[in-house]
């Protein structure tokens, strides 16, 4: 798939990058220290308000995960674990040794897969409402099942603010719809079962060595307090904070607050 024009990302460049034979859509913007942003369920376009803020402090690298946006899906890639290895290759292809890493939701899981494999590849890590740990224990659900919700219910549940009309699939132009359908398919590929997690991740998280901050939206309606607690236990080396007035999509609800916390943490990596 060729990259399409995304008006909300008009403050940077959208290119295709070859990563060992896989064509990956890469958005770059801004100037300053390098920052790798790993997007969540709503793609790089969903993170546009956050990326606009981050570009004021960083040279932002925001790829679309394989299978999302216009990024190809290499044969055999079907686990977030695979994405972890893939992003080592992507950092190598970009010549990025130790960027700051920020990630949202599903992207947080991907960041953890990357940095449990090569802990030295980030100077700091900010996880905004990450997934990846066990999302349920038998009958107790820690993360609501996005695949069983209507689109309207899901859109409302993900955000504290009113979802934008642009995210309504029944009103999207065809090229946008195709991106959204690809993203949904990719989420299903990586996250249908086991639901949005890697059972092996928890026992590997001790390997996360860079300064790390976990952020949750105060009004996150997707994850339960028990899930936040599980992250606190699994990542005792990290700081754990809350962003007020934000749901699961912190980047959509509070882009400025999230960007300034990411920038401050990258500059002085200590929990508040």
């Amino acid at each position, binding site marked *: 798939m060729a990259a399409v024009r995304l008006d909300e990302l008009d403050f940077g460049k959208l290119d295709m990058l070859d990563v060992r034979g896989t064509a990956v859509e890469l958005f770059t913007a801004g100037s300053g220290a390098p920052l790798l942003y790993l997007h969540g369920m709503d793609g790089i376009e969903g993170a546009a308000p956050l990326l606009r803020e981050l570009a004021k402090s960083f040279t932002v690298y925001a790829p679309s995960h394989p299978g999302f946006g216009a990024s190809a899906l290499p044969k055999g890639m079907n686990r977030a674990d695979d994405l972890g290895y893939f992003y080592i290759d992507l950092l190598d292809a970009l010549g990025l040794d130790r960027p700051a890493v920020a990630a949202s939701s599903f992207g947080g899981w991907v960041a953890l897969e990357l940095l449990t494999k090569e802990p030295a590849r980030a100077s700091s890590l900010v996880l905004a409402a990450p997934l990846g740990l066990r999302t349920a224990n038998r009958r107790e659900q820690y993360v609501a099942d996005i*695949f069983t919700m209507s689109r309207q219910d899901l859109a409302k549940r993900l955000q504290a603010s009113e979802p934008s009309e642009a995210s309504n699939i029944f009103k999207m132009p065809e090229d946008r719809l195709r991106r959204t359908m690809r993203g949904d*398919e990719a989420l299903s590929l990586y996250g249908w079962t086991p639901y949005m997690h890697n059972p092996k991740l928890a026992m590997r998280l001790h390997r996360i060595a860079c300064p790390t901050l976990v952020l949750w939206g105060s009004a996150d309606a997707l994850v339960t307090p028990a899930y936040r607690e599980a992250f606190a236990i699994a990542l005792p080396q990290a700081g754990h904070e809350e962003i007020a007035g934000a749901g699961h999509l912190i980047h959509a609800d509070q882009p400025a607050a999230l960007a300034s916390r990411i920038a401050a943490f990258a500059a002085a990596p200590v929990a508040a």
Partner: protein
Amino acid sequence: MKIWQFSEQAYHPAFPVPGAMRVTLPQHHCDPVLAGQLLNRYLDEYLLTDELGLDIMINEHHAAATCMSTSCMTTLAILARQTKQARLLALGIPLANRSNPLRVAEEIAMVDCLSGGRLEMGFVKGASYELFMSNRQPTGFMDRFWEAHDLILEALTNEGENFSWEGEHFHYRTVSMWPRPIQAPHPPVWMTASSANSARDYGKLGYVCATFLSGAVASSVFAGYREAYFQSFGKPAGLDRLAYLALVACAHNRDEAFRRAEKMKSYFTTAARVEPQHRNPWGFNPVEANVRALAAGPLAMRPRMRNGNPVPVDGSIEEYMDAGLMFVGTPDEVYEQLARFNIETGGFGNLLMMGQAGELDHAETVDNLTLVAREVAPRLAVLPEVPLDVRYEAVG
């Protein structure tokens, strides 16, 4: 044309429960004693089908009040022993929802063996919402389907040493069918299609191709099949390769037939009751199919009446008849309607007849089946061939 009797074996007492009839309907609405009585009743009707000289089709669904058969092969295991002559069609086994295709092959072999070689094995993609129960991966669904298909056929037909299987999706150290099927090389394969494209895939392989409740679309499904079959085999496909599924309500007089059709119509209204998010799990349909479907709108997939309008879910019996989904009337009328539909679709050799559906009760079902078997089936058995030029007019 041969007739195969089929019932979804509904738990119709749950139909008045508000909301979805599938996936989310809690099981406390099921009285298991009543369910058992109904299941036995439906089996009795299948035994009558056998006595009447018709053939039998069984399906399966999961977490649904509309269909209590949760395993084709479990139901057919009973009928394999209790029927004497009917062909026994499983249509079908949702291969890509099964975690263990070798187990599927074993069940097929055992039922074929038990029945004296009367099994017909239908492999289906299955309804999208079944994924919520099987919880199998929605992506790569058809790759998995075809690998399971390949493995099952190799298992059933193996005349040599036991073998091992290391595939993309399935891994077995030893494949060995004890017992193995009676029919050689294997029981006939059926598949289902709702478009000419998917029918072409089956035409290439020469499998029996069935289309369900598709009305006018059946003619393009059959045309696609015939075209691909001819390319593969260098001769026209026999009528026995094609099948159409519809509801049949027959009675001695037209008014009674329509009363029966009204009771059967709850099949349509309840089958449609499923939450929108369960209709299309993320990753199940290809991206381009989703883009096309959203552009076309929700009515695009509804069967059409002769005036081109989609049949409303709660349409009248006349509207369902007009669309070719119900055949209703006296034996003469039902025969005439089917003979006309047969010509319109270019001809097909198998009528998959829902002679019981929805709330049609036992006595009515017995009468319906008996009338069809005695007064319609003999005439359908000797339907005149649809002339070839008419048949190929349907292509396009």
